[in-house]
């Protein structure tokens, strides 16, 4: 017997839309703040070597506020697809958002004005929110079964999350505890684990669902995807070991092996693009391809800088920026593409068709975000390369513009799907 009403059963399988969307909306706000903080930092970025101030506040607004916030929202929304296991406790999901948002604000303000107490408060809250995220994540992964590749990526990212959280707390409290002797090396390891480990593995893992879904291709085969993960993990482990034990050979091994892992992953992604049924890709794919380009370039730049090839005072800053720009560009591309898709899905009602994707996504704002983000990244690289404060100001102003455009994109999608009368 047929049951009238088209999409019965869709809603009860999904989280309430307000949960993932609050993460994505907040990430859009933090994107604007992060660029704004970089704008305020002026020329501080050129020879930045660590320590509190606008740059550190911008980095953490970006990593915690944009990247981690997006990863949290995406995990809550997408992990059930891979594990076939829903996130049951919605209260904890909401609490995660509140805790993480407050933590990022306190940490950002504390870092910007170099207030140790605020930094400690923000760091402590961030520790709690990351622990809660880890707990939710591991609970879902443990109970679920399904896509081996995605699940293994998420477990690896979870391991990275634990290490980076402990290391982050140790670094933040080091002025009073003195646990860490070599702060610069510990900070570098913290950065590598946070970017290539935690966030990078999340991005790579969810790519195995999202990219084929966007381009309508088959899921990549398990064997090459697992080979890519193993090689990449080996490379990351080598790089961290090389830094920790001061063994250049191990670091080089790690860097080169990591590049092979990335090449294997990107090959699978490009194969998906090539074999996909959707040939005409949206503007967000320009940003995604740009990010894929930045990923290996960041590592190559880092290795050459380590070898003394790029001797300028901002060479390491450029490395750090390339890494963050890779993650930011990738996640922004994904966010631009997935927001209208999820909104359409959530707006489906029994007996009613979902709104058309093409009617939800404002193409002009999408394109504006894509090009202003790419322009801001390229101009920052130029500004750092020629050590020019005015160029950095223009670049970061463009970044603020892209952030505001992202906020307006988010508001437009939400308005069109839930408030606009058709």
């Amino acid at each position, binding site marked *: *017997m*047929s*049951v*009238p*009403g*088209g*999409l*019965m*059963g*869709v809603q009860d*399988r*999904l989280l309430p839309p307000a949960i993932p969307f609050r993460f994505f909306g907040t990430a859009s706000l933090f994107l604007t703040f992060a660029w704004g903080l970089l704008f305020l930092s002026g020329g501080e970025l050129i020879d930045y070597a660590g320590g509190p101030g606008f740059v550190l506040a911008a980095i953490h607004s970006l990593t915690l506020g944009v990247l981690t916030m997006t990863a949290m929202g995406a995990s809550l929304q997408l992990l059930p*697809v*891979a594990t*076939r296991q829903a996130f049951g406790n919605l209260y904890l999901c909401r609490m995660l958002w509140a805790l993480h948002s407050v933590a990022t604000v306190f940490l950002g303000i504390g870092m910007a004005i170099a207030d140790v107490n605020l930094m400690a408060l923000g760091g402590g809250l961030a520790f709690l929110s990351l622990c809660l995220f880890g707990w939710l994540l591991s609970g879902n992964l443990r109970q679920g079964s*399904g*896509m081996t590749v995605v699940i293994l990526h998420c477990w690896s990212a979870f391991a990275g999350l634990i290490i980076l959280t402990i290391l982050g707390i140790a670094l933040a409290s080091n002025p009073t505890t003195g646990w860490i002797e070599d702060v610069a090396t510990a900070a570098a390891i913290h950065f590598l684990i946070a970017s290539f480990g935690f966030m990078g593995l999340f991005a790579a893992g969810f790519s195995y*669902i999202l990219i*084929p*879904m966007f381009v*309508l*291709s*088959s*899921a990549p085969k398990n064997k090459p995807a697992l080979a890519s993960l193993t090689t990449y993990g080996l490379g990351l482990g080598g790089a961290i070991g090389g830094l920790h034990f001061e063994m250049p050979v191990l670091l080089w091994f790690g860097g080169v092996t990591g590049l092979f892992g990335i090449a294997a992953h990107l090959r699978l992604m490009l194969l998906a693009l090539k*074999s*996909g*049924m959707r040939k005409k890709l949206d503007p967000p794919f320009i940003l995604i391809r740009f990010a894929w380009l930045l990923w290996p370039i960041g590592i190559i730049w880092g290795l050459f800088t380590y070898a003394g090839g790029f001797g300028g005072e901002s060479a390491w800053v450029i490395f750090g920026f390339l890494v963050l720009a890779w993650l930011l560009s990738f996640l922004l591309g994904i966010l631009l593409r997935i927001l209208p*898709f999820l909104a*359409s*899905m959530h707006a*489906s009602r029994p007996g009613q*068709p*979902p709104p*058309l*994707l*093409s009617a939800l996504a404002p193409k002009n704002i999408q394109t504006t975000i894509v090009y202003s983000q790419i322009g801001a990244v390229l101009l920052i690289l130029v500004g750092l390369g020629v050590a020019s404060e005015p160029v950095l100001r223009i670049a970061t102003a463009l970044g603020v513009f892209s952030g505001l455009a992202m906020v307006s994109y988010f508001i437009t999608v939400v308005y069109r799907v839930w408030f606009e009368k058709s």
Partner: protein
Amino acid sequence: MTDLWRTRSQLVDGVWHIDVKNMQPPDPMTAILGLLESAAPAGDVIIHHDRDPIYLYPELHQRGWQARRLDNPDDLVCLRLSRITAPS
């Protein structure tokens, strides 16, 4: 163009059936859309699935199809797809 749909679908009494159970996401979606775009069925299509294909619905609507849930004891989820607009 992916040919996943070829090994998973058959025409029974003039109605296309596609069985996408035990496939990894997004392969079910790709197979179903592959069938709709390649075979261009004139009539309805029956989907035999083991989960509610929540990510499929916006894509179906984009292509002028709608889904209706059927009760079928052999499947966890059984859907009948029918056109809401004439094929162009």
